[in-house]
């Protein structure tokens, strides 16, 4: 008989959890879909139950700012998909990031963050939190030693994105987690663009995961929401840096969250303080919409990355494109790391640069017909934007440069359309962007006036056949 330990039992699969986790058919009505509990508050059976709920001595819902049955299904489902002990949903991804930061930081706290971040996160860390006494040092996400060098005694967490845009930086999660843990601070990762389908950061050493559910998790561009997931892995007591979790909290009956909740200390404090006091609550109807999307996450993400691979391969070989910032490209700096951490594909949001610079970029965007020019990513529909004038517009030139955003950079979010149709649209727009006259606006107007016949004049076969 072998001395090797036996293989573990098979857990429920990702697709099954995406459909079922957190929900049983409604016991009152038998409803199979998750009901929308559009109620601000919930009746107490008696005064004893009321008092017990307020003291966290019993389980249940009190007031929808703090918990709600529909939102709770989404929270438990996201936690299950990420492998976390629990999750709290918030009104947006930014609200979730703020909840995480505000739970762990206070005046005098310090954050070490990747310098390649979503523009909103960059704003929060660079401009808003300093007003509340929280400072941030930004470092190169590809250099774990830079994270180590930036950590100070007052550092409370390391923050980064699993997969950044528009340059497609992939974080070496295990390496940065080792650096953070050696210093006694947790690693909090924004995994919005990877989703748990492409990578589960907690399995690589992250402690807290945050999502903008608005993007691929919801996937249909109909609801704003965010989630914060606690891996239950970080030892707050041993760290010694988090009295908010390891000492009695006067704001909640003297509760010591680590004493009471152990591995769930962080996420319980997020709910009991963060949602209670900041109130950035996710609406039940939004949770319902996000759950509808989450049910098909696996199928959608596979299609997103399959389509992305077609587009990346096409653009990388196009003479009008100077660079494609997607880890699929062999000379991308994170090509090998992405293949190891995200073997299914390194996401569906990436940037590329046109050889013609800013003017070509403008012409390209205005020539697209199927891609939608808007400020979002992770929709079922393909999207395009010019970061320097929109999502990253509040960065000064130095910050833009540090984030790798050049004036002519175009960002794509590849959707679920037929890949051939996406390639056709890209081909005609690239063709127009390459025209020396720069008369795209007139061309576009002419095309509109001519209706569909204008589209048919586009000559894409060589591109589409790639």
């Amino acid at each position: 008989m072998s001395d090797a330990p036996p293989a573990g039992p098979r857990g429920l699969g990702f697709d099954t959890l995406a459909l079922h986790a957190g929900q049983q058919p409604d016991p009152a009505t038998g409803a199979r879909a998750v009901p929308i509990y559009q109620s601000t508050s919930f009746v107490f059976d008696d005064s004893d139950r009321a008092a017990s709920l307020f003291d966290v001595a019993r389980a249940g819902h009190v007031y929808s700012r703090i918990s709600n049955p529909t939102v709770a299904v989404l929270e438990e489902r996201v936690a299950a998909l990420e492998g976390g002990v629990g999750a709290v949903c918030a009104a947006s991804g930014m609200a979730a990031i703020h909840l995480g930061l505000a739970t762990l930081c206070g005046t005098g706290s310090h954050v070490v963050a990747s310098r390649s971040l979503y523009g909103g996160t960059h704003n929060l860390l660079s401009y808003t939190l300093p007003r509340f006494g929280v400072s941030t040092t930004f470092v190169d996400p590809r250099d774990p030693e830079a994270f180590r060098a930036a950590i100070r005694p007052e550092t409370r967490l390391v923050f980064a994105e699993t997969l950044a845009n528009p340059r497609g930086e992939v974080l070496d999660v295990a390496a940065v987690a080792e650096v953070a843990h050696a210093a006694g601070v947790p690693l909090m990762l924004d995994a919005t663009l990877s989703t748990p389908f492409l990578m589960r950061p907690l399995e690589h050493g992250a402690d807290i995961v945050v999502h903008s559910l608005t993007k691929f998790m919801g996937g249909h561009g109909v609801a704003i929401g965010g989630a914060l997931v606690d891996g239950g892995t970080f030892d707050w007591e041993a760290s010694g840096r988090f009295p908010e979790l390891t000492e009695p909290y006067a704001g909640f009956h003297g509760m010591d969250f680590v004493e009471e909740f152990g591995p769930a200390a962080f996420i319980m404090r997020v709910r009991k303080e963060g949602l209670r006091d900041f109130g950035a609550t996710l609406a039940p109807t939004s949770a319902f919409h996000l759950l509808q999307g989450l049910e098909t996450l696996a199928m959608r993400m596979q299609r997103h990355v399959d389509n992305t691979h077609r587009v990346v391969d096409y653009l990388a070989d196009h003479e009008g494109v100077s660079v494609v910032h997607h880890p699929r490209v062999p000379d991308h700096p994170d090509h090998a790391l992405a293949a190891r951490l995200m073997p299914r594909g390194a996401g569906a949001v990436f940037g590329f640069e046109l050889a013609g610079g800013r003017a070509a970029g403008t012409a390209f965007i205005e020539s697209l017909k199927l891609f939608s020019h808007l400020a979002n990513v992770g929709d079922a529909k393909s999207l395009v934007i010019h970061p320097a004038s929109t999502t990253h517009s509040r960065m000064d030139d130095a910050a833009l440069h540090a984030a790798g955003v050049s004036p002519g950079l175009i960002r794509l979010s590849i959707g679920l359309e037929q890949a051939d149709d996406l390639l056709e649209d890209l081909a005609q727009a690239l063709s127009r962007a390459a025209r020396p006259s720069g008369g795209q606006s007139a061309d576009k107007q002419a095309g509109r006036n001519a209706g569909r016949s204008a589209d048919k004049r586009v000559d894409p076969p060589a591109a589409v056949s790639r």
Partner: protein
Amino acid sequence: MRLELRGHPVFVGSGGRVGGAELGQSAAGWQGGDAPRLVLWHGAGMDRTVWVLLARYFARHGVDVVVPDLPGHGASSGEPLGSIEAMAEWGDELIRTLGEHHGLGDGPLILAGHSMGSLLALELAGRLGERETPPSALWLLGSAYPMSVAAPLLQAAAADSPVAADIIVTFGHAYASRLGHNDVAGISVHNLARALLRRAAPGVLHNDLQACHDYAGGERAAVQLQGCAVHLLVGDEDRMTPSRGAAALASLTGATTHRISGSGHMMMNEQPERVLATMRALLPATSGAPT
């Protein structure tokens, strides 16, 4: 609270600092004097936090709640104790120490334990009975006697393999709990149990499981339980301590069996409201508590 026992720091929870109540400072009036003492023992590889809601509930109702982390578990240091008998001896010493030095009263004693903790509670109740001071009540949750542990689980635990936690998590929960819909918003009981087990120091889980497997003192303990009301709480989908073993234990101890529907082995987290309802109903009958 933190105290020292046998030269090692020990952590003993008290159901939170609800209303500022400490041990021996009960908030409710009790028939016949002191408030009941409810000692809650955790299971293999676990710690006090598995009792959090129940402990807080009974504490805010004036019960002197004692929720220890066994040596080598949770926030208690020291080596894990190698047998159920050794755990009971340590538990006996702890309760005496709490009474002599930390204000624990003399009210009716209820020993409650989950899984390994239930064997500890049984053994300790037998010892107290032998000294003619049996507890008022013995509440055994997720228990069986004998408590045989399957060879693959022991083998995985001996290797400190994460597979051991995976086995317990998978077989320790009802199917519905694996899918979810927790009473506590946003918490995955499945993943919480795994995280707790994976926090155990190397060797602790195997030590505990082996202690359960080896325990053979149930018959001796059972004959000392005169005057002690024994209640067995059984999850109706418990595959870790299946109903045959639970029935044997009930027969041995004269226990009244209470079924916890929709629950596997991890009933305090899987069905906290149903477990609470059962324990709350038992409390007045066994401790003189006000209804």
